[in-house]
């Protein structure tokens, strides 16, 4: 159990993401993989190193009105608004499947969503109680804080530290922090100082798309999160900056659609590589990236994928 795929093509692929022991570095991004089960139609999900669940709050959230997405060059924008069934609803619907997936060797990371410190605490307390099977908890601190006029919860080192400080004592397993793509080195250091075990970055980058005939937003809100290949180069740079700033491992994401994109992230300093938007249009790509990375590592002449983490040469 849990040890298959450790060696592929003569390369040991296992990585340790702050205590989340993954059989290979490939993970899926929250909000792009639902709760995993729907992808079993496309491939054996247990081939992945980990999956990260859609963010769940203590109470169910209905999310934003339609339209929630639009296409932009080399990517898309969304304003889903963290629609989710709540931790209790998620466990009722998917708990058995997810416990089974852990047993099949793929780590499950539960993401906690909130709009305030109190909501994050409520979400992680429920996760601790109801998700004994989960290997890790990821805090999504790139949400607008409703109580503070919609500013990002994790938009400053001080506010990021406040959330991590509040939840850290309540999370008795590896704690990942999903950062907003702003002030990366400072916020990364603040999260590390408060006891985060790993950092996930980047989240979507706030963008805007206007229909020039109607003069209206192409989404139901004025702005939305840009994702996909369009943001990949920015994400690689931010992962590299974070990796320079902290000692804890980095879960790198942003526009990864191929093994080459994933390999770039590893060289920039990511311990794990997380596939997001590409799951929507190429639903087998995460599994394909496992194979591609192993071939790349073998071609690079290493016997352990860990030798390539941060191996970027200036």
């Amino acid at each position: 159990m849990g040890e298959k795929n450790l060696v592929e093509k003569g390369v040991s692929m296992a990585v340790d993401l702050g205590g989340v022991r993954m059989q290979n570095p490939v993970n899926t991004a929250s909000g792009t993989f639902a709760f995993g089960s729907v992808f079993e139609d496309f491939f054996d999900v247990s081939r992945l190193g980990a999956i990260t669940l859609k963010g769940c709050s203590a109470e169910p959230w209905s999310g934003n009105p339609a339209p929630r997405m639009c296409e932009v060059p080399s990517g898309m924008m969304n304003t889903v608004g963290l629609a989710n069934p709540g931790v209790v609803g998620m466990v009722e619907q998917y708990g058995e499947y997810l416990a089974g997936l852990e047993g099949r060797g793929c780590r499950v990371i539960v993401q906690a969503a909130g709009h305030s410190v109190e909501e994050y605490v409520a979400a992680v307390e429920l996760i601790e109680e109801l998700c004994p099977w989960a290997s890790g908890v990821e805090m999504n601190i790139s949400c607008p804080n409703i109580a503070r006029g919609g500013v990002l919860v994790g938009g400053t080192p001080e506010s990021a530290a406040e959330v991590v400080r509040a939840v850290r004592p309540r999370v008795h397993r590896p704690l990942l922090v999903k950062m907003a793509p702003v002030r990366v080195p400072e916020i990364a250091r603040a999260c590390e100082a408060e006891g985060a075990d790993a950092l996930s970055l980047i989240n979507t980058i706030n963008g805007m798309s206007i229909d020039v005939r109607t003069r209206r937003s192409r989404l139901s809100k004025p702005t939305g999160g840009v994702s996909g290949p369009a943001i990949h180069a920015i994400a690689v740079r931010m992962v590299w900056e974070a990796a320079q700033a902290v000692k804890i491992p980095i879960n790198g994401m942003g526009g990864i659609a191929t093994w080459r994109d994933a390999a770039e992230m590893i060289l920039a300093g990511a311990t794990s590589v997380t596939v997001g938007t590409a799951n929507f249009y190429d639903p087998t790509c995460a599994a394909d990236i496992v194979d591609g990375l192993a071939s790349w590592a073998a071609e690079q002449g290493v016997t352990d994928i860990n030798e390539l983490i941060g191996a970027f040469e200036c």
Partner: protein
Amino acid sequence: MSAGLDVHGFTVVSNEPVADGLMRIVLRAPELAAALAPGQFVNIHVPGDASQVLRIPLSFSCADAEAGTVEIVYAVVGDGTRRLSEMAAGETSTAVGPCGNPWPSVAGARRACVVAGGVGVTPIVACARMLAASGVAFDAVVGAQTAGRLWGTDVLEGLGAGAVAVTTDDGTAGRRGFTTDALADLLAAGDYDVVYTCGPEVMMAGVARLCREAGVACRVSMERMMCCGFGACGTCNVAMADGTYKSCCKDGPVFDAEEVAW
């Protein structure tokens, strides 16, 4: 989810205009053709432009399991469908599907009416095939902006439609006006057990209202902007009358008209 959901390879058999702004593409994809049921849809990758990463969700008009082909009549509305219209016979790509749920058969239904507006005619033709195959008598209303943009009336007649009422916005074919004008007359005269409709949302809202007034069940096929088509992205929400949202791809695209917040 849908039985047989997968990424299916396809080869273009033919792709030609059938009306102003409407094209018909026939894909050879035997497994997909066998898995599809009327009312479901597919999510197609159009190759050739790396800057357009998302697939195009499209309803189909005919899935022929014996021939191994899927026929899709689509409107050319943006860059993606324009590039699709340029795919030639022999070219290959992939389609994710089957996506969504089929048109439900209504237990005990003997007589139905199908109402199509614009390119909404595509899943309505698939619906008519389902009705014809199960021996349910049906009438049809087909609406378009102009005579030149009409497609499907001969297909519906060929499938055994009792009456095919045509409406155009400008009166260049059939009755000048909207599909709801023609449906109101048919509902007054007919004894339908169920109405199936697909078209612009404002039209379907009108069809739903007429059916509610007449006490006839109504099934609507909704359209939303979406990414994946299989329940992962959470972007294709449809507002329900009870204040909740449902997913167009996972819970729909076919809904009971009474469920939907018009």
